[in-house]
């Protein structure tokens, strides 16, 4: 756990949803930054320096969120991203089954290497609990 306020980086193209999550998380004492596409997220992630990433799947294309995960977690292809190894990725999406089935926390798994999955709609309280859990692991 970090000493300063934990910084949450949300990547989602639904600006209203981003607004409400920003309000909820800032009220709970987190720093909040956002990007509205996978491309923007990968451009600014280094300057953001997130402690946790909340990621949508379908943005500028059907698998934009998966692309972000691949960049941040495929250290063979992107060794510069090794710094994100311990940064939890919470996928929050309306796509229910296909994401859940591809998600695994097991090291070495060929499934999507994210840390947690929440299906929208998500209650603010549930989101806060999940973030706290991931940050305190």
């Amino acid at each position, binding site marked *: 756990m970090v000493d300063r306020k934990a910084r949450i980086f949300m990547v989602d193209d639904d600006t209203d*949803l981003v607004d409400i*999550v920003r309000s909820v998380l800032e009220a709970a004492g987190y720093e909040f930054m956002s990007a509205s596409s996978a491309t923007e997220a990968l451009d600014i992630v280094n300057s953001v320096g997130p402690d946790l990433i909340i990621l949508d799947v*379908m943005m500028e294309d059907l698998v934009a969120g998966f692309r972000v995960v691949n960049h941040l977690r495929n250290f063979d292809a992107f060794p510069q991203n090794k710094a994100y190894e311990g940064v939890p990725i919470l996928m929050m999406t*309306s796509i229910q089954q296909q994401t859940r089935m591809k998600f695994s926390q097991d090291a070495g798994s060929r499934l999507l290497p994210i840390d947690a999955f929440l299906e929208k*709609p998500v209650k603010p309280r549930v989101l806060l609990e999940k973030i706290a859990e991931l940050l305190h692991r």
Partner: protein
Amino acid sequence: MRRPNPDDPSIEGVTAPENRLINHFFHDFKGGLSTVIMCMDALREGIAGPVSEGADRWLDKAERNCQNLVSLIDDFRDLTRMEDGSYQREVEPVDPSALFEALSVRVADEAARRRIQTAFDLPDGLPGPRAGSPLVPRILDRMYGVLVDCTRTAGTLTTQVNIRGTGDRPELVMTIESEGVECDGTRLESVFDKLAQSGAGLQLGRGYTMLFCRAAARYIGGDLRLSPWPGRGTRVDLRLPLAAH
């Protein structure tokens, strides 16, 4: 060209391109609704200051209706996946005791509001928690929503639960009697027909919930049947395997 589902020839199948189109529509609908629900949740949790009791009551109604739409979207989307074979079979813990406890809570408010007497007659020795299909609690949740709606004010909604099979493959066998709307024996199958459901004049199972419930029950190896309860209402016979399918 449409092709039937190989697992259930009675279900008219959607094609893969149709399924993709439906999935995209549903994703967009659900995304917007999810944001609305989250806004209402945040308001109710005080994000913009205290919410009066009256305002909370209206937010609750709005949220409940949005949630119902999300459920409808999920059900129809998964129905198309079952039809085109892309539904991914999942396993999650299913605890029969907790399941019926949750169902009692699920129907309690609406039943109390309309003075409906509900009863769940459970057998001794319900099987313990096990790895099962998430479709089991979902089918029960959806179906009881419809059944409470179709039970007349001050009527009864009774459920007799039995367990068939032993060892690793027990099944829930349920007979549910709803006093109120008496289904028309000659038109029973129309309850499970999408096109018929888009017409008018249907009673029990109006809408798409019951057809989802039956398709989902059959998908995991169970079944759902309706029959008239002459002069009283409608009887539902439901069989749901508890083991993972």
